[in-house]
């Protein structure tokens, strides 16, 4: 799978018309001989299959090549930026799960039609909001007007809150809806009636008995959302000027820095695939019924 991913990025990026060396140095520098020299140093004069196998071989050793722009190893460029992006994605995931599952559970448990309708409407609003716009509005309201948060800044927890809310809100909207729908199903089942008949409090039945079984669906959707959050971080980072992988890849595209684009895309795909595999294992833990498969 990752092999396929690396091959696809490699092929696509080498389909690009134009030559990074020419883009970078212009034609003036040392004439044709100088360009040839630079190409040779970067290994760009080798046949493409050879370049690809060299790339994969090196990647397996943790060498993703050297940035054409900065001259630094791609891996250390990524290493510098990765924590900020991961922190943002995970924080957004927390926002999404806490808000989404919380609101969804509340709507299912109270069986209020008004609440159910609002959840439905809010979830449509949530997925329709452009995150970058939401981010701008939050900056305006909470950072510039109320001054509760710094506008931009270093990687403290304080600066993470607004971006995490921005990125997590649409996912929370989806989760709220899924949680409500899942719980409403579960609450109709016999064992819930049994638990209630035993005289257990309603809140306890919802939280301990129903939620645990509704969790499967929630977990699946949350897992699917993760990739979206990771990719969405590219845009949210731009709104909040956070130095993460998003700004790295956008600048790399604008400057045709192929090794960096390739590296970032590969890292994103690796994280995505690993998370999906981890979720498969997690399903087994949450639901013993599917452990066999």
């Amino acid at each position, binding site marked *: 799978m990752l092999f396929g991913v690396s091959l696809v990025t490699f092929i696509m990026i080498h389909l690009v018309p134009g030559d990074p060396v020419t883009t970078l140095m212009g034609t003036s520098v040392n004439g044709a001989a100088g360009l040839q020299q630079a190409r040779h140093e970067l290994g760009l004069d080798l046949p493409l299959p050879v370049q690809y196998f060299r790339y994969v071989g090196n990647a397996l050793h943790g060498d993703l090549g050297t940035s054409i722009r900065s001259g630094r190893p791609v891996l250390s460029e990524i290493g510098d930026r990765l924590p900020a992006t991961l922190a943002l994605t995970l924080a957004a995931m927390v926002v999404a799960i806490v808000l989404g599952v919380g609101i969804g559970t509340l709507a299912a448990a109270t069986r209020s039609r008004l609440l159910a309708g609002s959840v439905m409407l809010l979830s449509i609003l949530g997925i329709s909001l*452009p995150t970058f716009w939401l981010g*701008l509005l939050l900056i305006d309201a909470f950072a510039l007007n109320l001054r509760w948060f710094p506008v931009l800044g270093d990687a403290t927890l304080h600066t993470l809150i607004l971006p995490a809310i921005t990125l997590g809100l649409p996912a929370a909207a989806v989760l709220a809806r899924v949680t409500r729908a899942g719980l409403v199903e579960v609450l109709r089942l016999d064992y819930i009636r049994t638990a209630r008949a035993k005289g257990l409090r309603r809140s306890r039945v919802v939280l301990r008995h129903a939620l645990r079984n509704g969790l499967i669906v929630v977990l699946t959707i949350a897992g699917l959302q993760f990739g979206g959050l990771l990719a969405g971080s590219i845009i949210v980072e731009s709104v909040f000027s956070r130095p993460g992988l998003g700004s790295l890849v956008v600048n790399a595209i604008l400057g045709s820095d192929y090794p960096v684009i390739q590296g970032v895309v590969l890292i994103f795909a690796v994280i995505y695939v690993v998370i999906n595999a981890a979720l498969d294992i997690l399903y087994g833990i949450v639901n013993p019924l599917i452990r066999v498969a």
Partner: protein
Amino acid sequence: MLQPMGIAAPVPLDRDVARRRRGQFLRRLIRRPLTLFGAIIVLLFVLLAIFGPALAPHDPTEIFYSAGVTPPSPPSAAFPLGTDSTGRDVLSRVLAGARISLTVGVVAVAIATFFGALLGLLSGYFGGWTDQIIMRLMDVMLAFPDILLAIVIITVLGVGLTNVMIAVGIAAVPAYTRIVRAAVLAVREQDYVEAARAFGAPHWRIIFSHILRNVLTPIIVLVTLSIGLAILTAAGLSFVGLGAQPPTPEWGDMLNDAQGYLQSAWWTAVFPGVAIMIVVVGLNLLGDGLGDLLDPTTR
């Protein structure tokens, strides 16, 4: 659709059936206020995309700069939504942006639908190694989160609005392929397909006239929902500078420009965002209800 057919009952003309179905559809639409609301928004959006530029009070790229007034200037009689940081009329730009957004959404989704439906039909109908090759390819594409896939494609094609449409379209192909394939698998073994095959109908006719017709509902729902998503993604890409370039009146790029003027000129940041949100809400509400409306089993 089912109704008692007496011996004396006249065979309804195709035209009558079509009219009655349309009537039913509208009646059911009215009973669902949220879906109706979505449909009205979408209708207005389409009308605005067609006539918006003609309604605009100014040229969306014209710069208004008079002595003593530094842009951005607040809403006034001449500029109801104010002017942006370079002195262009925000109202005219928002109106002109409707056409751009609709084009982006429709072109991107047309690309996704064409290739996705084609691959899904082939994959689901033929199965075997055709299915294997197509679906493994889609698996690899699905390993990239959508925006990232679009970004990879933009890397290849270059920065710009046209390339963003193509990129967003291609990035959505795997989702279409999967859904169409699943729908095809469900109808492939139906009796009418078997009958067509027994009559010796060629593969292409079975695929395009028997199967395609019966997987249209999921495709239509997906199209409505993904036009909204395509508009959001494309606006996001323009916002980070990979899509529409100034002075194109594109909503995402307008918000990018507004970033520096949050405090001094709220109007530059509010209106383009509101426009995106309303349009996408409309498309989502419509798409959400359309599935139930078009599904014959819920009648």
